[in-house]
Each structure stands twice: as structure tokens, then as C-alpha cells.
């Protein structure tokens, strides 16, 4: 199997090819440096992203409060996480950095407020 990626570890943006062998071996080509190899392999085996979104707050001048994950989380976890974030209704006052969701699905990742309110 062949997979294609654009490396985002630096602005050059090499076009990478990842070859997955019958024995599950991984081989990367098209990368100008080692970081490209690491990038393609991580994107294939366990792609993660930092998630930023907003929670309901309902203040007159701030309807939504911005939040983020403290670390990148697995892409597969993003939709359930968003669902949980959108189901919350926060109460002011809130300080920047305050934990909103603790240890989401035992991933060790928290969701914290990125803005203070109230």
C-alpha cells in the first residue's frame, strides 16, 4: 500500500510517499530530512491534533468561551471530544488555564479555558 503526505514539519513541504510492506514494514521516500520520515510514520500509525473549540458561557458580551486540549489527541478521539465540549454549559468566573474536562477518555489529555471571563 502507498500513502501520500505533505510534510508540515517545516515550510518546505516535501511530498512524502509511505510504502507499507506486506510484512507491515514502513518505508518513507520524498523527504529531504529525517523529520519527514518521522512525520509520515506518525501520520500513518497514530495521527494526533490539538483541538480548539468553544464552550457555551452565555455572558452578555461573551457567548462562547474558547478552550483547547493540553496536548494533541488521537484523530479518532476528536469527534467524541467535540461532542462533550459542546454539551457543557460553563459558569463565570473562569480563569485562563482552568481545567474544563479532566483526563478525557483516560488519554491523559485535559481541556482548558484559553480565556478568562467574568
Amino acid at each position, binding site marked *: 500500500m502507498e500513502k501520500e503526505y505533505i510534510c508540515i514539519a517545516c515550510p518546505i*513541504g516535501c511530498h512524502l510517499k509511505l510504502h507499507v510492506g506486506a510484512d507491515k514494514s514502513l518505508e518513507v521516500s520524498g523527504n529531504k530530512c529525517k523529520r519527514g520520515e518521522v512525520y509520515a510514520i506518525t501520520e500513518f500509525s497514530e495521527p494526533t*491534533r490539538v483541538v480548539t473549540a468553544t464552550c457555551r458561557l452565555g455572558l452578555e458580551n461573551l457567548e*462562547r468561551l474558547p478552550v483547547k486540549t493540553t496536548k494533541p489527541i488521537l484523530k479518532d478521539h476528536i469527534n467524541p471530544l467535540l461532542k462533550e465540549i459542546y454539551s457543557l454549559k460553563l459558569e463565570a468566573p473562569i480563569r*485562563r488555564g482552568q481545567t474544563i474536562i479532566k483526563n478525557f477518555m483516560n488519554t491523559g489529555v485535559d481541556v482548558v479555558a484559553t480565556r478568562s471571563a467574568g
Partner: protein
Amino acid sequence: MKEYIFDCVVIGGGAAGMAAALEVEKSGFDTAIVEREEHLGGILLQCIHNGFGLHEFKEELTGPEYAERFAERVQASSVKVFLESTVMELSESGEAAGMHELHCYSSVYGVFLLKARSVILSMGCRERNRGNIGIPGSRPSGIMTAGLAQRLVNIDGYIPGEQIVIIGSGDIGLIMARRMTWAGCKVHAVIEIQPYPSGITRNIVQCLEDFDIPLYLSHVVSEIRGKDRIESIRVTPLKNGIQDEENSFEIKCDTLLLSVGLVPENELSRKAGIELSPQINGPLVDSFLMTNKKGIFACGNVLHVHDLVDYVSRESRSAGSNVVKYLNSTLTGVQNKVKAGANVRYVVPQKFNFQGDNQFYMRSMIVKNGAKVEVRAGNIIIKTVNHNHVQPSEMISISIKKEELEKISGIPDQQLEISII
């Protein structure tokens, strides 16, 4: 009418205004910020994604976090902040030479007048809209700029539509493609007239490819359809720059977001008689970031559109420190011209001096790997810097030390020319 006198008044309390004001206040000058909105922070407050502050704080922050860190410093300082207040007019004082007057209107304080020996312009930029790009067809509702949509979704909690198409592949549009998807909308396509995307690769990958959103390069929206609300658009590919009607197709949507570029916000400056660069729409400034009006300086997106807030903060601190010198009457130095050379769209500032170090910001006109930025004065090469990669969407900055200019300091009327080769 209430009147206040300051040493320095900063117009706009975004990243630029806060950094500049703090720098001036630090030296003991009475400083004020006038900000139209209810909070300090400017555009950063609606940019809830991360990717800010890697240079400034050595960690990756979201826009609101970056803004709040600066706002806390402002609150802890003696800078006077007028929120919900707009500077309506800027003019020279009729009474005292070297004084500027700012006519302000506030929904809280009413009308008031500020007088100051120095002024810093940091009003940011605004987005180009449909009028600027001229798409034919009807004028239904459901069409807005990506930045407005960003504000509606992220701050007001209002989702403007469900079936989205984005015109232009600028970073705001890309960021909004992900944001709308994560908000439960369907983003059908991003349409870009150029053969290459105008946003950075990371955003192409993480905001489009992650969600299989197609990016149509070298395509235009040739028609907008719908009566009251937009119903669909017609998309036409470009073949050698000409619309290839036969291969046009239709995309149904209820919302069209425009991400077709930003322009420095300079209505106020223009009316004040400040000379603007016709090319970038920001004030023409000397090496101290001072405009043609003595005592009026500019920094941040009002001067030229930045893609990195870290550069905004750095540039604004240097504007602030020049204001301090101006107020102390120690801002002197002959100003010589800087020209944009081959493959450089513009260079800011447009002047340099021999008295100190000079920092230049520029944009490339080309996409190239293994490029060189070359600074020369006539036949003399002052400096070359290697860049792994250059592209129009990533601003380039270069600093030239005082010593590096010694080679040419004896020669009068020297011009610098910066090229990308």
C-alpha cells in the same frame, strides 16, 4: 467636552497597540490606548486556534491566550485604557506646534478629546469583500467574509449556515473550513483563482485534507445563484487564464465565505493627511516607523499585513522605543531609501539609517526552495541570507547591523535594494 493630555496615544488595542504602549509607558511617559471594542486583544480574540507565540513566548498559544498575556501586562501598568471608544478624527492641534488631537466617540463616555505629542497608529486591517473582487450574479444573503464568520462563531456563538463554500485559500478561510466542520457544518469546497494556495501548508493539511475538503486551484466562482438566500454557485476552471465554460460545475450551498485578502485599515490616517503606500495601503514610514507626519508612528497590520503575531509584537516594541526617543528629542538620523528589488513585492520600512541596526520585513513574489535574500547598495553586497523556502504567504524578516552598513557609510545618498534570488 472632556479633554485629556498624554505624551503618547495609541489607536487600537490589538497585539500591536498593547506592545507599543507598554514600551512607551516603561520609560515613564503618560500613555493611553483607545480601543473600539469592549476588550483589549483585537483580532486575536477570535482566533481561537493555536499557532501563536512560538517566538515571543517559546510555546504554542491560541490567539486569546496571547492577547490575555499582553492585556494583563497593560492592566498592571499605568497605561490608561479607553475601551468601547473610537478615534473618529486625527489632526494637528491648532494651538500648540507638535501636538496632535484625537476626537473620540464612546458609547460609555460620550465624546472626548485627547491631546498628545505622539501618536501610534495600530488600527489593524480589514478584509476585502465581494465588492473588491466582483463576482457576477444575484446578491442574496449568506455571503460574508471569513473573518466575520469567525467572529460570529467563536465569540457570539452564531453559526451562519450549514452548507459552506469558501472563496480564496487565505489562512483565515482555511482555519474557518476546519472550524465550521468542527461546528457540525459541511464545507464543500475551497475555490482559489491562483494556481497555488495562498495559505500556509500546515493549514492546507490540517484544515482541508484532514476533512477531505477539495481545494480547486485555478478555479473561479463565475456566478452566484439564489433569490433571498444563496442557493448555489457556479465554479469555472481557468485554462491559460481564460474561463473554461464547458467544464463549469455547480455546488449547492447556503453560505459563502470570502477569504480573499486583508488590507490595512487607514481611513483615519488618510483623512489626517498621512501618506500611504499605494501598493500595500499602509503608511509610508521611515526607518523609525514614523509617518510623514512628525510624531505619528505606525505598527502592526495597519502598516502591512502580518501572518505572525510574534513579528507584530516585535515591530510594535521597536515603534514604541522610537516614540520614547522622539519624546526625549533623541530620535535623529539621516533617512536613506530602501527599494524592493527582484521578486520582492514590498519592503517595510521604506527607509534605513546608519545610526543603528535596521529591521526589514518583506514579502516574496515567488515560491522557491533554496532562495537567497540579498541586500545591496549599488554594486556592493551588504548581506545575503539563505532561506530553505520562500513563498508569498510567509513574511520574511531580515536585520542589518550597524556595522554591516559601514562599507557604504561614507557614500552620500546611498540606496539599499533587497532582492530574492
